[in-house]
């Protein structure tokens, strides 16, 4: 079609009609990495969802900390009975504040790291499905 040969002898009868598939735009597979680099709509959606999910994980940890550890002074204040409790001879508040909270904070951190690393692995697979890099 691009090269319309002028019909030289119309009488010969046979006209060749071709579909120029060879010149049609080939379908280029673009990676998500490229989409992100070029800040296209798709790339933006990927980035937004990654950042949102990371922020959600961080906020979950922060809110958990707020509801448990940060509320402790008020809990001990409002439930005075707790102050009289003893475990192995150690007063309950000293056990909780001197060691229990630290252990809880470490567990929270460990859970967070596990969650976020899994999310990042998923994102990497999504962006580079083959991941054929050395």
């Amino acid at each position: 079609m691009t090269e319309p040969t002028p019909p030289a002898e119309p009488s010969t009868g046979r006209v060749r009609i071709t579909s120029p598939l060879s010149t049609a735009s080939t379908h280029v597979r673009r990676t998500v990495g490229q989409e992100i680099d070029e800040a296209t709509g798709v790339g933006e959606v990927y980035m937004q969802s990654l950042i949102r999910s990371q922020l959600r994980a961080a906020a979950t940890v922060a809110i958990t900390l707020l509801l448990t550890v940060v509320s402790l002074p008020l809990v001990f204040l409002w439930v005075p009975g707790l102050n009289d409790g003893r475990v192995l001879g150690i007063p309950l508040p000293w056990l909780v504040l001197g060691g229990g909270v630290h252990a809880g904070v470490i567990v929270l951190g460990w859970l967070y790291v596990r969650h976020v690393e899994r999310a990042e692995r998923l994102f990497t697979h999504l962006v580079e499905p083959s991941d054929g890099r050395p």
Partner: protein
Amino acid sequence: MSPTWGIVAVSLVSIATLAIGAFGLRISRTTSDFYVASRSVSPVLNGSAISGEYLSAASYLGIAGLVLTHGADMLWYPIGWTAGYLLLLVFVAAPLRRSGAYTIPDFAQVRLQSVAVRRVSTALVVAVGWLYLLPQFQGAGLTLQAVLDAPRWVGTVLVAAIVTLNVVLGGMRSITFVQAFQYWLKLTALLVPLMFLLLAWSRDGRPAAQASADWWTPLGVATPEAIYGTYAVIVATFLGTMGLPHVVVRFYTNPDGRAARRTTLIVMVLISAFYLLPTFYGVLGRVYAFDLIASGRADTVALELPSRLIAGSGGELLTALVTAGAFAAFLSTSSGVTMALAGVVGQGLSDHGPWRGRLSSIAALRIAAAACVAVPLSLAFVAEPIPVASSVVFAFALAASTFCPLLVLGIWWRGLTSAGAIAGLIGGGVCAGAAPFVTLALDVDGWWGTLMSQPAVWSVPIGFGLMIAVSLATRSRIPATVGRTMVRLHTPERVQVDRRF
């Protein structure tokens, strides 16, 4: 007691510190070695180093002293210093490493594309660092006075000199080894004597602590001011940790964002293990060293207990061990802070000063280190010593009111502008920075005194509020590069994207 063992202990720690520093010197050659140990430090080594650097005189001596004096409420200090790392882990650790900058001012400039933000952050880094160094230097003087009967200036000058030498000679790489060694030294130096002390206490018939119910109960005297005070410590320590220059600079030495997270987790485990110990010293102090409260020397309780419980050379040896740990605490924290300050100021000197280009970056780092030590050193002679843990909290409050909003908003909110950042840094910084001066100079009483001496509860919201409000008002000045920066901060290193700015 005879000061011989104490002198031996202090000399050994000093020599070991300088020797490990010299070992680092042999392998630190490039600028990158000097500033960030070429970013090749493994999580376990880096975790030990961060913990070694973080456990300052405030943790080593200060907590025991505060528990001895005030009781259960003081347990919030070590909780805050641990939980601060949890918030650092979830909001800052990986993106900060992925930002690829050396220091907070670098981060600010890269994120906001503004030299003015860089200058303001540099000034604040220096302010936080000086507030942190001052009590370390004073504590060193106090310790050598208590143990060796030396005049107060001896310990102060000794620590300042060793720290400057170490930074000047070895830079970040040697510091990393020194700090990692000092964490384990500090842990041992509190743990081993504690075993003997508990044994002696047990043999003594387990006498009870001379304390009222108020001392044993959290918020035993539940005045509104006491409740405010507890929350002020919580806010300052939870949010301040992520903004401490010597902690932040360590995150750039991780190989990648994932390693930065793992390092943080290791730090939380290591410092929690350490924080179990000072509480015991505080409680035992209530049994055997009650007089220290009245004489205003509560900070020395960990140093005093071994010789009071264990007679003879055994007690003296244990005292020497605790002294060695305390000295390691002064050295490691001061080295870390000085290194961070020198990194920030040195970069400014070599890139921006009138001698731009004529000063090599390593020479600039060395000059900056000497200058950064000189100021708090002279202040240490002028200022009245106050309990070391409380004065460290001034530095935490300042970091929480300035760098915490800068980092959290800069990493998670596209809308932050340079004008907003500057407004928040200056507003939060002035509020939190004025507090120690008002407290020390004017000696205000009542509610005003409480609010001024522990500003974090109101100065942190001011810092955040100003940053958000002014950013919203200057929305047109959001840097065009913000999308690019966010990609870089948040995508895992394995994903191949364009990371240039």
